[in-house]
Every structure is written in C-alpha cells, then in structure tokens.
C-alpha cells in the first residue's frame, strides 16, 4: 500500500513513493471529486444526491462542477428531508441505481438512522438475498471554529455495530479516491466518512480509476516498539507523534485502519504480536467504539502478546463545546499520542 505513506500536511509536503514513479498531487477533496466524476462518467446508474450538491460551494469542493458537467439528472439537490432522501436513495438502489448520497455533516445522519439501519442494512438479508442495496452515503466530520455539539460528530460506531453495513474512513487522498470507487461499486450500503481537516491535505493520487479494498488496513509507518492504530484524521496526529518519538529513539508502527467495518484486526494483531503494545486513536468518543473493538479482538486472538496495557486516544466524554478554549481542550492531538506512547513505555 504505497500510497498510504503519502499522508502529509499541506505545509510540509513529503516526497512519496508511487508505482509509476511520477507523483501527481491532489487534495483529499479533489480526490473525492475525481472519483465521483469518473464514476458518473463510466456508469449511468451512478448519481449524486444531497442538499446543496449542485451549488457554488459544492460540498467543500467535492461535487463542484459536477452538475454543470453531468446535468441535473445526475447531480440532484434535495429538500431538507434526510430521512426520506435516504429512503429514496435506498429505493433507487433497490431498483438498480448506485446513488451517492451526500451529507455536509455526519451529525445529520441520525435523522435517517431508521432507513439506514432498518432498511438499507437489512433489505438484502431479510429477503433471502433477492434484492440488494448498492448505496454509498458520504458524511463529513466537522471540527473547529465553534462547530459545536451538533456539527462535529463522527458517529462511526453507530453504523459499524450493524450487520449489513460497511463503514470506511479514509485518511489520505489516495485512499479517499480508491475507497470511494470501491464503495460505489460495492453491492452493499457503505458509509463513507470524511474528515473536514483532511480536505486540504494533498497527496499522491493516480489518474484514472482504481480501487482500494474495503476492510483492509495499511501500515503507513513500520516500527517495533509500539503499534498505533489510527482512524481517519488521527493518522495525521499519529504520524506526527511517530516522527517526534523517533527522535527519542522510540520506533512506532502506525497502522491506518481505513475501514471500520469490516475492521482489519488481523493486521493490527500481527503488529501487536511484534510490538507488544497497542494504542488506538480515533476521532470520536471512547465508549463502544473502534478502540474497544480492536483491543478486544487482539485480546481474543493474542492475549499474551500484550507487554503492557493497551490504551485509547479518543475524544473526552462530553459533547463538543463551541468556545475556543474548550475546543482546544477537547481535541486530542499528536502531543497526547506522544505522551501515551511514553507512558506505555515507562519513559
């Protein structure tokens, strides 16, 4: 997975490996736009639907220009009616389309939970496999500038609990493009969760269509002392921490989980067998989330591998505050990961 190495901050672009040798840099938001355009161009069953997908903002640029290029029957603005619009996308999928339903914030998905949990996730099984729901739901995690309690949630565990759903959370432009294509081509409902803070980060993105397999994590940095399994934007923090810690002589293996369901616990388990130490970092709350599931799976598979107690880096147990001093206190970052690693190694 060479491209997962291409995580980098906008202010600190890094040279990355690429299978063609030529680096083609796109922002995360541009990667999503490109994947969408390729899908619209190649499959007449694909369409994009969501509030404001055709407006000048274009969902932070991820749908910009698509309505002009593909017309209003392929890129549909909607009323404010998240529950029905989700059901409508599901119904279109049952009838053979491959809709991409877009939400500006993950926080709006609870309005459509019934359609997602009771319909999209079950329509295939409930009818003995006779129907299927090839639907992709894109949602964005907000962060910062006082987004507040109702415009900043990730909520990935709510979907990942449900059999029948898949959940992916790419951290790099390469994975964003490849996983979006996989999601749309998948015959199952896939929740595709983006992080606002990643949108302007650039990385290598090959031209033309390619897929990244859903359910596979990737090692984005090899190491021997501790495994840091990170999700979405926390990969940026984990890699920054790993770099800092290298100066202290600590070698971190960073795994970008990429998918939440299926969760690639096998890769993490084999890493922990090597390092004996596990930290899980995710951009959401602690309870009943990825940290818990992953640590438990490693414990089930390889309880003796742990040389120290595992740790979780998550949001604190409170809704998102809006004011800047509280927001600052709310979000963990690379410093917290660095500190956790040191604690884990008693350093």
């Amino acid at each position, binding site marked *: 997975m060479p491209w997962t190495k291409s995580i980098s901050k906008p202010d600190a672009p890094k040279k990355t490996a690429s299978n063609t040798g030529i680096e083609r840099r796109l922002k995360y938001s541009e990667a999503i736009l490109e994947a969408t355009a390729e899908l619209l161009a190649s499959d007449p069953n694909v369409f994009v639907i969501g509030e404001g997908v055709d407006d000048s903002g274009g969902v932070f640029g991820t749908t910009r220009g698509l309505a002009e290029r593909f017309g209003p029957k392929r890129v549909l603005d909607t009323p404010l009616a998240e529950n029905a619009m989700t059901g409508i996308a599901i119904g279109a999928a049952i*009838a053979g389309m491959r809709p991409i339903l877009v939400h500006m914030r993950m926080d709006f998905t609870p309005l459509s939970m019934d359609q997602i949990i009771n*319909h999209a996730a079950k329509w295939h099984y409930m009818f003995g496999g006779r129907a299927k729901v090839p639907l992709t739901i894109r949602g964005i995690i907000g962060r910062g500038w006082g987004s507040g309690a109702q415009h900043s949630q990730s909520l990935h565990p709510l979907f990942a609990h449900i059999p029948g759903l898949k959940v992916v959370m790419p951290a790099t432009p390469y994975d964003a493009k490849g996983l979006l294509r996989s999601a749309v081509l998948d015959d199952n409902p896939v929740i595709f969760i983006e992080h606002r803070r990643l949108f302007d980060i650039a990385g290598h993105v090959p031209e033309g269509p390619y897929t990244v397999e859903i359910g596979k994590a990737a090692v984005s940095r090899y190491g021997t002392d501790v495994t840091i399994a990170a999700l979405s934007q926390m990969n940026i923090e984990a890699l920054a921490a790993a770099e800092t810690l290298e100066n202290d002589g600590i070698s971190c293996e960073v795994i970008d989980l990429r998918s939440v369901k299926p969760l690639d616990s096998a890769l993490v388990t084999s890493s922990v067998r090597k390092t004996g130490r596990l930290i899980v970092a995710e951009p959401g709350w602690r309870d009943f989330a990825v940290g818990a599931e992953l640590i438990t799976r490693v414990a089930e598979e390889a309880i003796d591998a742990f040389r120290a107690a595992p740790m979780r880096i998550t949001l604190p147990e409170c809704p998102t505050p809006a004011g800047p001093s509280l927001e600052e206190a709310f979000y963990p970052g690379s410093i917290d990961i660095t500190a956790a690693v040191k604690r884990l190694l008693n350093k």
Partner: protein
Amino acid sequence: MRNDLSSYGLTTMTKPLLVRIYVTMLRIRMFEEKIVELYPTQEMKCPVHLCIGQEAIATGVCATLEKKDYVFSNHRGHGHLLAKGCLMGPLFAEIYGKATGCSRGKGGSMHLIDIDNGIMGTSAIVGGGIPLGVGSALASQLRNEDRVTVIFFGDGAFEEGAFYESFNFAALKSLPVVFVCENNFYATNSPQNARQAACRISDTASAFGSRGVCVDGNDVLEVYKAAADAVLHARKGLGPTLIEARTYRWKGHVGHEPDYANGDRTKEELDDWIKRCPIDAMSGFMLKNNIASADEMVRVKNAIDAEIEAAVGFARRSPLPAPTELLTDVYA
C-alpha cells in the same frame, strides 16, 4: 357498489378483466382464511397481519398495473403480493419459514418479495416503505423507463414524517408514483381520530399541489377507476396521486382472530363492515350485470381451493433452511 360499469365511467372494461378482479379478491380472501384455519396449529411461527375485508384495494390497484411496474408494501402485505402476481406457494412457504419461501425463510409474513413480478419488498417499519417507493420511481424517471411505482401504506403510516417528506419530493420531481393509503381507521388499537387532527388524508395532497382522491375501499371498481386515473397520470409524467381508500380490517391487528373482545373496537362496528364485504358486493355486481353466473363463481372458488391446497402442501413439504443459511445473504 353502483349499478353498472357506466356509473363508474368504466364502460370499456372487459368481462375477463372483471372476472380476474373478482378471482383475485377471492384468492386473497381464501388465502387469508386458510391462514386463519391453520394458524392455531402453530406451524406458522411468525406474526401475521391479515387483510381480510381490505381485499378490494390491493386488487383494484394492481389490476391497473403491468408486470414491470413496481410495488412496495408493508406489514399487511399478503394481498398486495397476490394481487401483483406472486404465487401462493412461495408465500405460504415464507410464512412457514421454509427455504422455498419467497424470502428463503428469512423474512416471514412481514417481509415478502417477488422481484420478477415487480414487488420490491415490504417493510414492517410503519411508513418505512414509502421513501423506498419514491426512490424506485426516481430510478425509473432517471432511466426514462415507463414504469410506475405503487406504494401501499396504512392510515398510521400517513402520520409518519417519512410520508410527508416523500410526497413532497415525488410532487417536486413529478415522479411516476401512486401513493395508496389503506385507511382502515385504526393503527393497532388506536382509532384515527386519536392520532390525526383532521382525518382527511386525501386532502393533504393539495398542500403539495398534487392530486388527492378518497374512494370507497370496499368498492373494487371505484378503487380500480381511481388507480387507473392515477397510473395514467403518473405514466404521462404528471407526478404522484394520493389515493385514500377507506376500508376496515375484520381481524385483529395481528393474528387470526377478531379483536372486539378486547374492547378497543366494537362488534357492531365490525358487523357493519362485514355487511359491506367487498367480495360479496362484487359478486352481486357481476350477477346483476351478467358478467358471471353463480355456477361460474362456484367453479372459481373450487379452483382456488385446489390452488390453496397445492400451495399449502408445497409449503409444508418444503424443507426448513439449514442452520448454515443463517450467515448467507448478509452481504451481497
């Protein structure tokens, strides 16, 4: 029912079609009555929501549809499936939880499907099927296909926000969809006026600038006429119609027995509605208008009896799905 076809504006309706409509209603009734007979043996191990008394709606509406047209239905779906062309065998088998069931034993009575006949599934979440049907109508529009979607739902489902949001979108985009609200005046044991401020369901359509029509749901020709108009309207690209068809469910909300003993509904109310049996009305109409003789009707009934025996036999003889089937069909 009225006196003759012309009083419905249905003078061109053919005799075979009228007979087919009668047969369909009777097939639904007898299918449901068979469940009433067999349910106490406890071999059908799932909740059943019977539509006895409401047969004219599924029948009248589906008689206006072609095989390719889509239907989404709800927990009370047996009649919709049968009217749209599903065979009795896979239906009974599903209710018995058998591997030969239309949903391979995974759905039960509340989750029936028959893709080949355009039946795209039934949701047991009240109102849950409504947006799905609007979605399949959107798919037809986007693909320029000449297909209409019919959504069956109850007076309870009408109260869900899903209805409102879905109807607005269907009207906004002039989608080829017909909303058929079977108003049987109750949601479980709650009467309509304990739940709805106005109790004028079909009037709601005008808030969306769309057509709404209220019909006697126990008069299969009135239903047929309204549905035919609505389907034509939809096929022309003129958008949705909301049909409110008033009727009554003879049995309890769930299960095989009447429910007046519980005290939530009265025996008098039921008896009144039994007098307005949609099938009796239609057989009277056919006799009066020389569409079928009493003899022919007996033959029809006997044929259905045989069909049911065969279907139940098929269902009962079919194997249960193996436990290994549990983990298939989770993902496509």
